[in-house]
């Protein structure tokens, strides 16, 4: 019984790691390659004024986009591939942990009879509010 739990746990761990590797590796490679192309500069320019609200560098927009479309693990991969301070990583982490994997999780939430628009507004809205608060407070410290 005891060993069975450990075995199941390890099996689930392996499954999770495999699942994660499948998303993280391509996204990490994509982000690293993007980092060496002008594309990242364009996204930076586009989102720079918006990211300033959260006290984040413009390139952090990529992390938010990846986290919201894909998942937290991909966002973590993107964060790792960038040079960010602890405060910036914390702000980004809060925003992504509140609003992430919108494609997959909204599908699950819909099954509970929750309106898709309500779910999206709640998550993205709260992520923005807490991003502003933590980003601003972090800058004061």
């Amino acid at each position, binding site marked *: *019984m*005891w060993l*069975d*739990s*450990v075995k*199941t*746990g*390890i099996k*689930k*761990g392996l499954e*999770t*790691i495999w699942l*994660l*590797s499948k998303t*993280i*590796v391509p996204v*990490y*490679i994509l982000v*690293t*390659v993007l980092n*060496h192309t002008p594309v990242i500069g364009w996204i930076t320019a586009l989102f720079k004024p918006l990211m300033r609200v959260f006290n984040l560098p413009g390139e952090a927009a990529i992390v938010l986009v990846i986290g919201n479309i894909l998942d*937290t*693990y991909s966002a*973590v*991969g993107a*964060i*790792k*591939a960038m040079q*960010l301070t*602890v405060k910036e*990583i*914390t702000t*980004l*982490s*809060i925003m*992504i*942990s*509140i609003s992430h994997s919108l494609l997959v*999780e909204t599908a*699950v*939430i819909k*099954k*509970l*009879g*929750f*309106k898709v628009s309500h*779910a999206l507004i*709640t*998550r993205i809205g*709260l992520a923005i*509010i*807490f991003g502003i*608060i*933590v980003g601003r407070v972090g800058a004061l410290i």
Partner: protein
Amino acid sequence: MINVLKEAITGSFESIFLISIIVFPLMVILQIAKDYKFLDRISNFFRFLARFFGMSEDSTLPLLVGTTFGIVYGAGVIIQSSKEGNISQRDMFLVSVFLIVCHAIIEDTLIFVAVGANGYILAGSRILAAVVITLLLSKRIRAGQKQLGIRTEEKRF
């Protein structure tokens, strides 16, 4: 180009290694907690959470499972409970609101801590966000239940 690819591949394997260090022990601990019914005991202990939002005590387990294990497990428990008929539509709605903002809190917090985030601020903000929105809605639904369109949920199961 070869340098870029090399950087990408070594970097991605490093992140997977870091995440593995967290994921393996986490999965084993959660599995043991599940198999040995620790979860049932814990949910008894956390009954005050459901009361805080003015929900029935049966809402505690989906709330806890979702918050610790993830939204998919939480949704599974909610659907199961609603089939057995011991969780009201209002409570289901409120548990869902809480969980869309705050779920898999251990896993989500640890993976960000692994890349350098402050875990206390991260987990604290997220729980605060979920508590505030759930509390606001729990007050609002008591006043006018029909406004939130939760009537349609019945047919989905």
